[in-house]
């Protein structure tokens, strides 16, 4: 758990972060979203003390982070940056082994951990371990960067625009992979992004920052339905709102009993994708099937419309 309490920071008399209080629970995925200069990166970097705070306190699992020496604190947390920051003179395996080596793990344990992480990120250890970062594609470099951050099994992972340098197709895959890994490892993730779409897609909770202040801190559906200010509303984008809302629910959530004509949609599908299917087939209702193809019920356009509606 990360408790941020009344935290502030100024650079040369200009306030970058202004009196922010928020709590990030264990195993939560929190995205901090804002425009450049909103103070979101400064806030993130105060958690692992790459930036020292001027006011307030940050507690990690109840311990003030100033009670731990900076390097030691940072070894206990993963940190991922946009340009991945891999050490160009070290191989992929050596890069991933960085923190375990700093912590003095023995060779065999390091080797086992490096291989495990390479496999987790779908990189064959024998092939990719001995390569240098510049021999990898952008997506692979990014995965190695996350692998390096996770190497010493940190409870907390801090990410600063980790997917910013990737092209859109790889970015979506990288997001899915990250969500899968977070689900599997239970790591608490705090991620900074300027992209509201990304913030909504990944975060359990979203912190919207503007001019150093925390404007709203809520789950995605609430941010969409009840934006705290006109600024948040503009970030969300009016035209996109209903579709984004729909993407948070699955077909199974609003399925009803009864027959319907047309090709069946899977009950795991998001409502957004179900809507697309219905529009495409020109149907006002479609049958719903489970993964094995057994019919479960139907989904209607009317129910979809209700779910995509705002607070009214």
């Amino acid at each position, binding site marked *: 758990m990360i408790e941020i309490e009344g935290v502030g920071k100024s650079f040369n008399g200009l306030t970058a972060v202004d009196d922010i209080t928020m709590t990030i629970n264990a195993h939560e995925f929190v995205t901090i979203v804002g425009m450049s200069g909103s103070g979101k990166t400064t806030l993130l970097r105060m958690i*692992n003390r*790459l930036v020292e705070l001027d006011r307030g306190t940050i507690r990690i699992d109840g311990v003030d982070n100033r009670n731990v020496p*900076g*390097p*030691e*604190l*940072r*070894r*206990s947390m993963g*940190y991922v*940056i*946009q*340009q*991945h*920051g*891999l*050490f*160009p*003179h070290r191989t992929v395996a050596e890069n991933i082994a*960085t*923190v375990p080596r*700093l912590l003095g793990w023995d060779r065999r344990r390091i080797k086992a951990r490096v291989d495990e992480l390479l496999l987790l990120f779908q990189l064959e250890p024998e092939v990719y371990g001995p390569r*240098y*970062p*510049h021999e990898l594609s952008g997506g692979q470099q990014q995965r190695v*960067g996350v692998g*390096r*951050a996770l190497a010493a099994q940190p409870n907390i992972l801090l990410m600063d625009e980790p997917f910013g340098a990737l092209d859109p197709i790889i970015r979506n895959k990288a997001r899915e992979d990250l969500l899968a890994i977070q689900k599997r490892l239970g790591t608490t993730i705090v991620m900074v992004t300027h992209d509201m779409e990304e913030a909504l897609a990944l975060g359990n909770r979203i912190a919207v920052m503007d001019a150093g202040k925390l404007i709203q801190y809520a789950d995605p559906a609430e941010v969409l339905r009840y934006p705290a200010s006109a600024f948040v509303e503009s970030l969300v984008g009016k035209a996109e709102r209903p579709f984004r809302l729909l993407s948070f629910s699955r077909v199974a959530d609003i399925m009803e009993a009864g027959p319907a004509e047309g090709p069946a949609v899977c009950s795991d599908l998001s409502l957004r994708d179900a809507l697309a299917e219905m529009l495409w087939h020109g149907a006002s209702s479609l049958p719903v099937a489970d993964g094995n193809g057994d019919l479960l019920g139907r989904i209607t356009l009317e129910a979809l419309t209700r779910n995509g509606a705002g607070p009214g």
Partner: protein
Amino acid sequence: MKWLPTLLRALAFWLLAAFLVTPRSFAPLFSGLAQGTAPAIYDRASLLMLAAQHLALVFVATVAAGVLAIALAILVTRRFGTELLPFARSVVNIGQTFPPVAVLALAVPATGFGVVPTFLALFLYAMLPIFENTLTGLTNLPRDVQEAARGVGMTGWQRLFSVELPLCLPLILAGVRVAAVISLSTATIGSTVAAPTLGEVIIAGLQSNNLAFVLQGALVVAVMAILIHDALFALERHLAVRGTS
């Protein structure tokens, strides 16, 4: 044709070695340049010995200058040393702007004739290229890599030795290469204050109006400079290839 430069270097190396070991067998080549009965090959000292002493002097001066220049560059790029940067720069620059001949002239009264004043001149001269290159390397490291080095929890010294210096190594080596090549030729003037270097051969030739001596002294220095330059350059390339992005 990729093998041609390598072949030429090998040839130059073997010719140089053969000349230094058995200079007399090359006498017919130089006899045309020697006037009258003057010897065609320098015979007042062993050329091999002079070359070895020449190299040793350059090596010691370059290594000493390297150690100090790199240490100085590290010092002024640490947070506590930034205020020393202008001072260090001017000290190093003065070393370079002072002509080596003047250093010799000034040093001899204090240290006497021989190797020491020559060492001093070479040492001062070699500082600047190594210092400037190390400084350039340390101040132009990729930001994301530095950020990552801090982010993974490296201490200042760990960052210096496992990230910053390794990444600067090709640039530092380039500075050492420049310093070594300059020192190789500058060392010849050391013979004016009785340092045993290949300059002795050249000076003897100038004094006795024997062009053969001048030429063989100059050729040996030049070939050594070329070979050392190429060897260090190859090492730089080898180190740089691994780390380039």
